[in-house]
């Protein structure tokens, strides 16, 4: 368990490789154009949470439409849909669900999970003083902000924002279906955010490979870092594919090329709309794992932290996550089962899709066995972690239906799919992000969020999310299709009015409950109470044990020397020697006092 200490010469070299710089003094360098990974993490957090509110509001508009079609939207209607008397029209509706999906995935969950936690945690958890490329990190954020502005600008154009769905399938997303400037801005935003993600990903991958503290071997990395690192690898490999596809689509829209146009709209031959789907989903399916791997990672640390028990079969989870990462690009065809693909190809994708359930099950069962015979602390981060487990479990299990071509003949493009991916990639990644925020808030801001408000927020979120997305699963099971402005045009869906209305009420409660979090966030941030201390949760990883809260500009006074894995809890030897049930990753186990040693010898 214990390593031989690193020699003094080696120590000096390690320190010299990452010298301590004086923090910048000017306001702009310190808070705005900062190259400090912790400040950039906060910038991503603010940008992400703000857009989470935008995306959430759009979701409420969709829910209003399904509960009360053709009725004026209260409060917001008069501001946003004044021309139609507060009522959402079909053309507006398609922009609402398109931008809801895009914003939530690219501009809300991605910046919080990857932009904020990736930036904040990677250097601190591996024992580095900053990212490998601090300036690239800054560029990544400002490019990201540009892409967010492009999305906002799209709402202000004459024909409104993009309306071709977040998947942006051509020919609908070309001038054939969406002639407005809004769609062009949306596709540009995808391209620009792709550049931002690629820059961030290169930085993360390099930092984890090159800048781990001495002793921080791959098999001692906290699972959060494994999740973020694998996500960064997927981002670096597949986001450029999306970016290039978006570029081709922009050429189709604005320069008369025809990469994705076919049929009667095409002049002289044309291209292939299905090509877009291949390019999109070879990114799009890994994207699901891009969002879920950091969530798995956060759970992999928070569950053992609050069960006060080492993670069960750490290596098994690591390899399972690696296998998922590899397989993630080999299953994307299940999004295209209905496009008329060659049966053999479809069956291959089905096989891989079913196989990817095996490593996912290893991850989940390891969580279960981590909790088994643990000594569970029911703090707010733990509640959110357990809820993540629950929603991811439900989402994963419902995925079994959709992996199969024959069940997809019925379920494809229904609300069942919507419920499934909201449980997995929306609910699980959102609640995992909340887990992370409640857990690392003391480290990021130096203060602890209020527990009672946190628990109230938890119940609204957990029950709300479960009921809303269960409602979607039920509606889809009964055949209700997605993306319908007025589902009740169809006789076979008319029996689902009540279900849709109830689901909407739960959604409104879920949305309202989030303001408890907003209140808690600002109250804690600007209030005086709750100074967190160095290690308020009593856990083991470097950011808690080797530095103060919040950490200084250079993170660590001395680069820590890691001597053990990330989850050393409940070790009887540690308890005997320190009186604690945990020991930090870089903490030397103290020798027994002389008397005790003598007693032990007999």
């Amino acid at each position: 368990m214990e390593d031989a200490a690193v020699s003094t010469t080696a120590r000096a070299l390690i320190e010299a490789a990452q010298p301590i710089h004086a923090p910048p003094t000017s306001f702009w360098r310190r808070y705005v154009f900062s190259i400090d990974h912790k400040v950039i993490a906060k910038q991503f957090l603010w940008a992400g949470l703000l857009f989470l509110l935008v995306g959430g509001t759009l979701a409420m508009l969709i829910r209003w439409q399904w509960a009360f079609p053709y009725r004026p939207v209260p409060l917001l209607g008069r501001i946003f849909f004044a021309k139609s008397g507060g009522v959402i029209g079909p053309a507006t509706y398609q922009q609402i669900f398109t931008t809801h999906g895009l914003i939530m995935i690219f501009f809300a969950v991605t910046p919080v999970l990857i932009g904020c936690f990736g930036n904040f945690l990677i250097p601190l958890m591996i024992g580095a003083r900053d990212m490998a490329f601090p300036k690239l990190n800054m560029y990544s954020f400002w490019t990201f902000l540009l892409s967010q502005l492009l999305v906002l600008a799209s709402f202000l154009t004459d024909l409104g924002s993009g309306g071709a769905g977040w998947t942006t399938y051509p020919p609908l997303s070309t001038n054939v279906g969406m002639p407005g400037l809004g769609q062009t801005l949306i596709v540009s935003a995808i391209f620009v955010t792709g550049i931002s993600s690629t820059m961030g990903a290169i930085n993360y991958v390099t930092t984890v490979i090159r800048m781990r503290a001495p002793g921080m071997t791959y098999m001692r990395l906290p699972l959060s870092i494994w999740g973020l690192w694998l996500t960064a690898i997927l981002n670096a490999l597949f986001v450029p594919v999306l970016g290039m596809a978006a570029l081709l689509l922009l050429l189709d829209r604005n320069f008369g090329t025809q990469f994705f146009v076919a049929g009667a709209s095409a002049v002289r031959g044309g291209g292939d709309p299905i090509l877009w789907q291949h390019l999109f989903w070879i990114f799009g399916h890994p994207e699901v794992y891009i969002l879920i791997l950091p969530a798995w990672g956060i759970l992999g640390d928070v569950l053992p932290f609050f069960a006060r028990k080492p993670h069960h079969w750490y290596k098994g989870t690591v390899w399972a996550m690696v296998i998922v990462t590899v397989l993630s690009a080999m299953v994307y065809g299940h999004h295209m089962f209905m496009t008329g693909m060659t049966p053999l190809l479809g069956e291959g994708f089905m096989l891989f899709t079913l196989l990817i359930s095996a490593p996912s099950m290893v991850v989940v069962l390891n969580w279960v066995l981590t909790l088994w015979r643990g000594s569970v602390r029911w703090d707010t981060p733990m509640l959110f972690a357990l809820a993540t487990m629950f929603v991811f479990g439900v989402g994963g299990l419902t995925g079994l239906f959709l992996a199969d071509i024959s069940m997809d003949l019925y379920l494809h493009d229904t609300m069942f799919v919507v419920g499934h991916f909201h449980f997995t990639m929306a609910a699980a990644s959102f609640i995992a992000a909340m887990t992370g925020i409640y857990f690392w808030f003391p480290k990021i801001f130096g203060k602890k969020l209020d527990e009672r408000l946190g628990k109230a927020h938890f119940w609204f979120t957990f029950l709300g999310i479960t009921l809303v997305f269960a409602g979607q699963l039920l509606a889809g099971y009964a055949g209700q299709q997605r993306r319908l402005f007025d589902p009740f045009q169809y006789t076979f869906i008319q029996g689902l009015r009540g279900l849709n209305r109830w689901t909407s009420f739960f959604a409104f409660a879920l949305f309202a409950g989030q303001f408890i979090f907003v209140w808690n966030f600002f109250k804690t941030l600007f209030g005086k109470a709750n100074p967190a201390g160095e290690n308020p949760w009593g856990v083991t990883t470097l950011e808690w044990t080797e530095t103060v809260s919040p950490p200084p500009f250079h993170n660590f006074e001395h680069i820590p020397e890691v001597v053990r894995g990330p989850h050393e809890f409940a070790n009887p030897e540690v308890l005997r020697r320190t009186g604690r049930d945990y020991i930090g990753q870089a903490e030397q186990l103290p020798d027994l006092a002389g008397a005790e040693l003598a007693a032990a010898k007999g």
Partner: protein
Amino acid sequence: MMAPLREHGYGLPRDVSYDGFRIDELIHFTLAAIVVIFVVVAATLIWSFIRYRRDRPALYTHGTRGSISVVLGAVALVLFAIDGNLFVHTLHDMHEYFWNFARAEAAPGAVRIEVTAHQWSWEARYAGPDGKFGTPDDVVTTDDIRVPVGVPVVVQLASTDVIHSMNLPNFRVKQDAVPGTITWLTFRPKVPGEYEIACAQHCGANHYKMRGILAVLPQDQFREWYAAAGADARRAYDPDDSEAHWGWEWRTQP
């Protein structure tokens, strides 16, 4: 003829096809399987939470050979008993029924229809008495497809503008209509009545209105309608109306 009926609201809509039960059975099997998995895992956790409270220290283990075997055993069990079962059944059903267009077409009395989807309706074309598509006796309808009960129906799908998806929830089948290519769909209706054709792929602002009616008629009624419609089509044929001549030569399964 009755208008499409309302469904119960919850649960699968009525299945009015000969092969839909294959999908329903798989859905019910999967549902049962995931409920069992969910209950076992949830019960394990809840039992652990109640039995081992925070006042006692946690068990110190990083996983033993025994506990890792439990994980691998459970994964193997699910993989073979559930995933394996789904894979084999799906393969069989797709090969024998849902994607076996040659077999459906070879059945005596099988009906062939060409469907062109466009924003926002379904145009259907029958070959007419001469059995050839793109000839003056073709029967052409809009948002109104009629088929006889009991025989396989084979549809070839095309789209002129954007991607659509022909969804027949009561028959448990759907298929995208993609500009530039021709795709296939087959089903075999069992119960006469009117059912809905829905567009399952977002295709623009009025996507929600892209609704058609599929009428399943008793054999004699279908023959009667088909003969009359063929005669009407010949009388109404206009060789100069190129817009109406969108039919293509029937393809054989690749």
